[in-house]
């Protein structure tokens, strides 16, 4: 079975072959014998040619959280259709939401302002810390739904950014 995995912007193709007595994994054109055991529901012990690795894995909807040496990697297992889509530039209408219950400290853009991808559009404060929320796409701010100083719940839409004119 071949899987297409996406990590940040990079896409990898990995083949898992369990047909033989020994499981093989093919990645980056290398075929590696792999010996693995689930230690518990979320912990894999993997032995790759003698090297012992212990990796945490959690299925989180369509995504996988993979924990290795202190870092959490979000890996998406994507179908062919998803793959085509991801090669296009992200566009459309995006809602900028508060990630958690917080207070709106600053609205950085007004309706009509142009924003680039990854540009900050609002600052919220939660747990005594300020965080900047960024626009995932290039476009124009079409709506501002909250005021500075507002207390908002998680998943409240603060602004809307649209790439369509």
């Amino acid at each position, binding site marked *: 079975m071949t899987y297409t995995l996406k990590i940040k912007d990079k896409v990898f193709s990995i083949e898992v072959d369990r047909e033989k007595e020994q499981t093989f994994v093919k990645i980056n054109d290398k075929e590696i014998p*792999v010996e693995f055991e689930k230690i518990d529901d979320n912990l894999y012990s993997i032995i790759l040619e003698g090297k012992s690795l212990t990796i945490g894995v959690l299925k989180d909807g369509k995504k996988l959280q993979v*924990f290795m040496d202190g870092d*959490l990697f979000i890996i998406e297992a994507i179908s062919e259709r998803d793959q085509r889509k991801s090669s296009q530039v992200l566009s459309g209408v995006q809602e900028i939401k508060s990630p958690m219950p917080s207070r709106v400290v600053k609205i950085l853009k007004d309706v009509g302002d142009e924003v680039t991808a990854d540009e900050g559009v609002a600052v919220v404060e939660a747990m005594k810390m300020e965080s900047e929320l960024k626009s995932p796409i290039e476009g124009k701010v079409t709506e501002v739904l909250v005021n500075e100083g507002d207390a908002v719940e998680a998943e409240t839409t603060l602004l809307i950014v649209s790439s369509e004119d």
Partner: protein
Amino acid sequence: MFKKILIANRGEIAVRIIRACKELGAVTIAVYSDADRRSLHVALADEAYHIGPPAPAESYLVIDKIIDVAKKSGAEAIHPGFGFLSENEEFAKRCEKEGIVFIGPSAEAIRLMGDKITARKIAQKSKVPLVPGSDGAVTDVEASGVADKIGYPVMIKASAGGGGKGMRLVRDKEEFESSLRMAKSEARSSFGDDSVFVERFVEQPRHVEIQIIADTHGNTLHLFERECSIQRRHQKVIEEAPSSAISAKTRKKMGEVAVRIAKAVNYSGAGTVEFIMDQKENFYFLEMNTRVQVEHPVTEMITGFDIVKWMVRIADGEKLPFKQKDLEINGWAVECRVYAEDPETNFMPSPGLLQYVKAPSGPGIRDDSSIYSGCEITSYYDPMLSKLVVWADSREAAIDKMASALREYVVLGVKTNIGFLIRVMNNEEFRQGKLDTGFIERHPELLTPGEVDIEPALIAAALAVDDVEETTETEKAPQSNWKLLARKASLSGGSLI
């Protein structure tokens, strides 16, 4: 000893205090908000009482509710931990009024040190060094003279200032006049007030603090220093004891200064005197925290002194059984605060369900935490998951141990700073002890995994996805390893019990 002690806190510090009180033979009483019913401090305490909704202002901060539980349960004393009501003068007074012992200093000491201006005055009177400066606004004529007196580099700061506006760093005398002009003009336009003051600029400042312990019989001792220079957002992330930056002479002097200020307010219990220190070991008083500190474990590790137990004993009237000269530093301790936060997005908190936790253990490792697989990190409280503390015979060995221990940690469900902490442990500058409060800002490369070999992560992901596919293919319902094993056990060894 008190028969019953109420712990007016939550999270790992509540767990820490409950364990200490239990070891002292006291019955422990926990309080909890709606968000904390499943928290470890509730499970560990002997008694537990609900005190309201998740918001601290409606539960952990409500004096009446805490006092109410204390009376209902018959608690003789209250340990406030840190945060919440720990530095609340009113709460300390109220306890006194109700005949309940507040495990901490007097309400008066809390008041004096709680007000920054009063604290500065007391420090000055006690001959405790403060950052040299003009002690208020100066005229143009005075300014240059003050700068000469305190020595360059200096900082010109707008009296009405804030947010970096109207501030000028002046490295030598030649620049002073022009810098003063610019600062004043900026101050005028920003705040409508051009008065400025002049202060010594502390370059590459370190945050060093002294742990104080004082009984009610006049014994005021210090338990040496902690180095807490690794900070993000002015919040400590990594602490160690002792500090690699101070000589025995400075340590002695700093300790004496700290004891002096504690004595000036008749301090009792555990407290911390914080200093800012330059790279030449000049140090200046910042503030005194009149409670147990988050990072108290590193001091416990190098002294063998249980700070929390002694806070309780001192509140109970016990006398410290030793003198300053009996105390010595043994080995090295490092603490890393493991947070549910994302270093890649400016350490933004990452609350959520900790679906899986595997904590390190073994010799020299202390994990002060209250997390477990299945617990929830809500956005109501601090997103600290654990204080991982290690002890070894040298700084180098302690750092190696910390790196190894962090690598054993596994947390799934939220983002954490564990990878970042590992990278700090392996950073050459950190290992050489070249620390200052700008360390993290200076090392943005530590915030991301960088060029790691992600092949193993991808292989693990592919195997995990394949596991599900396999199961589906063979038309079996997804079954966990655990269940398979459980079934196996009930077939064979299960009959043993």
